[in-house]
């Protein structure tokens, strides 16, 4: 009896060893092929269409006050778009809080253009014919930071506070699955189906991940932003719904953006 058991165990171990080896090899090939596919796609990235629409929206007189966003201060002075995204999130004295791009846009739309929060956020995330102005504007502003090095500040006390909170959130386990961001993004070589999961605790992966969002998601036919990314991660974690532009979202973004410091920004990109 004992002998038979031992034999079965041995056989089991051998099988595992073989299948792991085969998987690692074909996995490497697949990853390379997917990388090639992505490069082939990058030339005709439909994110361009969102950037163009966003630029239009930025310059258009909109809202009850009928003004454009060209006086909106994204941190580098009113109307300065070039390089702004690479320094966000940051502390804004006029709102006395740290803001990411999208909460800042929301701030400008409500304070300068006179929209209500509900109006400005009518379609936070687009879906086919229901197009999101927020996503288009984000694509445009982010695109104006292409080639700029990430440089997120920690000079203000509230910026340090946001980072610390973001870090805490990243490792915080909760929800019905007892999941943290770090459960999926705290170890190297993890993946969901064919998607490699970046290990966000490591500088190289953290930089690559952050500098390639916003991105056009081929599988959805939509351009997605960081607020969407976090929102969908929270959904997958079965966490409570992440409020758009909330302090929670901004704190996590501060943590992620700051960890990407020094890398060249290169988005809107294209993803599966």
């Amino acid at each position, binding site marked *: 009896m004992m002998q038979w058991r031992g034999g079965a165990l041995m056989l089991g171990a051998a099988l595992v060893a073989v299948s792991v080896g085969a998987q690692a090899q074909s996995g490497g090939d697949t990853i390379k092929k997917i990388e090639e596919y992505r490069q082939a796609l990058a030339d005709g990235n439909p994110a361009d*269409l969102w950037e163009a629409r966003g630029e239009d929206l930025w310059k258009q007189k909109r809202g009850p006050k009928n003004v454009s966003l060209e006086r909106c201060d994204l941190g580098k002075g009113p109307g300065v778009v070039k390089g702004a995204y690479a320094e966000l999130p940051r502390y804004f004295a006029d709102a006395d809080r740290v803001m990411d791009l999208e909460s800042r846009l929301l701030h400008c739309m409500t304070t300068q253009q006179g929209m209500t929060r509900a109006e400005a956020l009518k379609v936070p995330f687009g879906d086919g*014919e229901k197009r999101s102005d927020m996503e288009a504007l984000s694509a445009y502003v982010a695109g104006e930071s292409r080639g700029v090095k990430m440089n997120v500040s920690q000079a203000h006390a509230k910026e340090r506070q946001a980072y610390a909170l973001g870090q805490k959130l990243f490792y915080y386990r909760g929800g019905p699955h007892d999941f943290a961001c770090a459960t999926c993004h705290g170890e190297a070589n993890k993946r969901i189906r064919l998607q490699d999961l970046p290990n966000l605790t490591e500088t190289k992966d953290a930089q690559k991940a952050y500098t390639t969002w916003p991105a056009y998601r081929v599988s959805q*036919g939509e351009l997605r932003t960081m607020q969407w990314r976090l929102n969908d991660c929270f959904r997958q974690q079965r966490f409570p719904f992440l409020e758009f532009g909330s302090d929670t979202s901004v704190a996590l973004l501060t943590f992620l953006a700051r960890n990407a410091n020094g890398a060249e920004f290169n988005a809107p990109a294209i993803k599966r």
Partner: protein
Amino acid sequence: MADPMRIRAKMEGDKTVVRVLMSHEMETGQRKDSAGKTIPAMFIQEVTATCNGKTVLSAQWGTSISKNPYLQFAFSGAKAGDKVVVSWVDSKGDKRTDEAAIAA
């Protein structure tokens, strides 16, 4: 009214390479909405490109083309500064025409 296309045209040797991005839903007629009703097909049916009044590309498209299609093609006989005009007509009769000058 459909969004404008993004057209880039460039001389590469004696050939002109044109890259076009179109903004279109390209509904196949196979999808269902959240209520279970079929979403009617609506797709770009005809694509034409002209340069100096001559047709350089003419295509008939169907539902197998992706959403927000990207089209790249090359032709000869043009020079930098010439205009490439691209138009499409979809199955609902909606149309769009845009142009771009050929870069050196």
